[in-house]
């Protein structure tokens, strides 16, 4: 069952890690003799408008895409989980305050929020990671909080409290391990989302800047104008985004099936 997502993810991780060794051409090198040429034996996925090899750029583009995906996911998970657990466990005024902040962030469409933040901090690799992390964190916080509420109300937490365990110990030893399954599922989905956000923001010009390739910026700009006559410039990076996101989403699905006792035994 999990073979497909694992294979997809492994493929892209290997591409990203070994990109410099795998590319056929320098992804920035231009060859004026082969501008906008369709896929061929020499250029398996064709060339772009200034004669760069599309395959090499798709491979090189996996690095910023996956890099931003993993880094932004990590940030979102750490921040979102911490807020969610504290909020759910503490309850009362702390919960009320934190959840209203989360409410506000959730009312804003993610892309609009990301664009607004990037307009303030400026485009760049680090700001891209930070902004996507901030955008994804509230959703994670909300789900982790509800899981924490369930766990906090269970008998073993009450027992731990009865024997005098401190809040910190209860949170780390009892609550966290019991919400980890949920967090893992969320993390897998968050990587997919982060990759999509990176692609969208690069497409809009606020992500990875040309000539450095990323799947998102390869889809945007001149490749769009050329879409009718040279679709390979945009189709292959688009396909890479789709497959990578599909891989992480399928993995998230599989993990959820594994962890959710209610689904155990069902197909």
């Amino acid at each position, binding site marked *: 069952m999990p073979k497909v997502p694992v294979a997809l993810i492994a493929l892209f991780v290997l591409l990203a890690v070994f990109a410099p060794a795998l590319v056929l051409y320098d992804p*920035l*090198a*231009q060859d*004026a003799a082969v*501008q*906008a040429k369709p896929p061929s034996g020499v250029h398996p996925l064709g060339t772009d*408008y*200034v*004669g*760069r090899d599309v395959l090499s750029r798709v491979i090189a583009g996996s690095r910023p895409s996956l890099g931003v995906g993993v880094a932004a996911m990590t940030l979102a998970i750490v921040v979102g989980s911490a807020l969610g657990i504290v909020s759910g466990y503490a309850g009362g005024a702390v919960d009320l305050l934190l959840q209203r902040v989360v409410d506000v962030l959730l009312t804003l469409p993610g892309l609009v929020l990301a664009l607004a933040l990037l307009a303030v901090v400026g485009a760049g690799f680090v700001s891209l990671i930070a902004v996507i992390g901030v955008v994804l964190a509230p959703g994670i916080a909300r789900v982790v909080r509800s899981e924490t509420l369930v766990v906090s109300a269970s008998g073993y937490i009450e027992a731990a409290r009865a024997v005098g365990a401190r809040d910190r110990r209860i949170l780390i030893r009892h609550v966290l391990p019991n919400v980890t399954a949920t967090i893992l599922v969320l993390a897998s989905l968050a990587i997919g989302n982060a990759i999509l956000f990176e692609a969208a923001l690069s497409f809009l*010009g606020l992500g990875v*800047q*040309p*000539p450095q390739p990323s799947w998102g910026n390869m889809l945007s*700009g*001149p490749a*769009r*104008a*050329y*879409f*009718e*006559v*040279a679709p390979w410039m945009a189709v292959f990076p688009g396909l890479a985004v789709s497959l990578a996101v599909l891989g992480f989403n399928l993995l998230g699905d599989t993990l959820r099936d594994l962890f959710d006792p209610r689904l155990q035994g069902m197909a």
Partner: protein
Amino acid sequence: MGLTARVLTPALAAVLAVGACGPAPQAQPSAAAPSAQPAGSAAPTPAAIKRGGTATIAFSVDPVHFDPHKGTTAQNFVSVVYDGLTQFKTGPDVPPGTHILEPALAEKWDISADGKTYTFALRKGVKFHDVAPISGREMTADDVAFSLERMLVKDAENIKRDLFAVIDKVEVVDKYTVKVTLSQPFAPLLANLATVFASIVPKSEVNFKNVAIGTGPFVLKDFQRQSKYTYVKNPSYWKNGADGKALPYLDGFVQVIIPDEGARTSALRAGQLDFTDLLVDNLAQELLKSNAALRDEKFPGNFSVMTRLNVKEKPLDDVRVRQAISLALDRQAIANALGGGTGIVNGSIPTALTDWAVPVAELPNMKQDTAKAKQLLADAGYKDGLKLTAVLLRSPQNRQIMLEAMQGQLKAVGIDLQLQFLEPADLSKRRVDRNYQLMGDNLTPSAEPDTYGYIEYHSKSSGNVGNYSDPALDQLLERSRAATDPAQRKQIFRDIQLKLAELQFIITTGDPYYHSVFQPYVKGFRFSFVNQRIPIKYVWLDK
């Protein structure tokens, strides 16, 4: 059609030739015998012309306002609504690239011996559109004086003021005569008066940003911003067609806004558009291949996508660095990238201005020579390379294509070019503040070389946004404006182009070939860069 020898006295014809484009041998046959032009589908016999019908065309940008004297997005919308004192001949019998000046609202004019006084005799009985509050009253000298003075107002919005700034005084002599006095002789005046920026508007207090009431062939009837603009024919237009009745042939036309090039070609293919222009070569080829019924005309672009260098910024103040940048470039490769496989290389005056442009092969520093480029950089003290930043807009995309191609080529000589994409408002501010190193941009298309010369490069020109200042060049540019002898003017422009190739203030690269593509039943269509006027006055539909 249009200009015939009958209308003109020999003296006037000579004046026109001077004002238009020098000796222009190709201007003669078309002016004398328009019906002799075998322009295929585009040259009908008068009897064959069918009147009536409504055409639909697409345009990519919405106008911010309609005021022809202020700004550049309005021109493609109001160019059919207004006329100027003069105009460039358009229509199916004018080959692209030829620029023949002809009378419009001014029927004829006299130029004083010192070249400083122009007396325009206006066409009588020309009526403004029958739209309130002007309601079809006659156009007179008062309106012309009002319009000229309006063009000369010192206002940041009057961005084309330099085209007319030599006008010192405008006097109404009588109802149909206007006298214009210049501060100095100025060869481009009649050509500049043919631009949309010199449209004659009715003397009134209406806000020309919101209404468009002129004397032109079409009346703007209705519009929805960002969507469509509907025009109906002006029933009392002053100019006759080939069938002897008043132009235009169409009952009206609709201009729809379709920003996306791909969507425009799809709409044409689906039959929702009757014609479109400025389709880049490769897109047009694809469209024509898959749709054999469509007709097209191909012509070289004269926008000249280019890179401005700000010479106040180190190291671009050093001519050796600028020459090195120029020598590092394979311009044909850049032009090809812009056109998707084909393209035309341009020097400081685009090749499409055949009467003026010096062939690029004759200009120095325009042919790739990386060894010499590296040597010049080393001489200038940048042996280990240098880093430059270019600012640009995301759209139009041709700037990105050009700069990405340059980025790759400059790397080979050790120049690391960074691209910085800006929003339109930011870029405008950077331009006004002269706060940039390099800027991806394009030149304003024109039939008059002055636009590519004085306006861009003179140290005192408001269009000079790169701090360019070279005394010898300034002197040449001033002489180019004052010279009224066409042969002499041509020689001066040759010297200017050689000088500019040496100075490399603006790195010109090239343009795509463009196509106008139209449905088989569209007749009389011929794209014209001059005035940037929509060439629809002579269009008729054979269906």
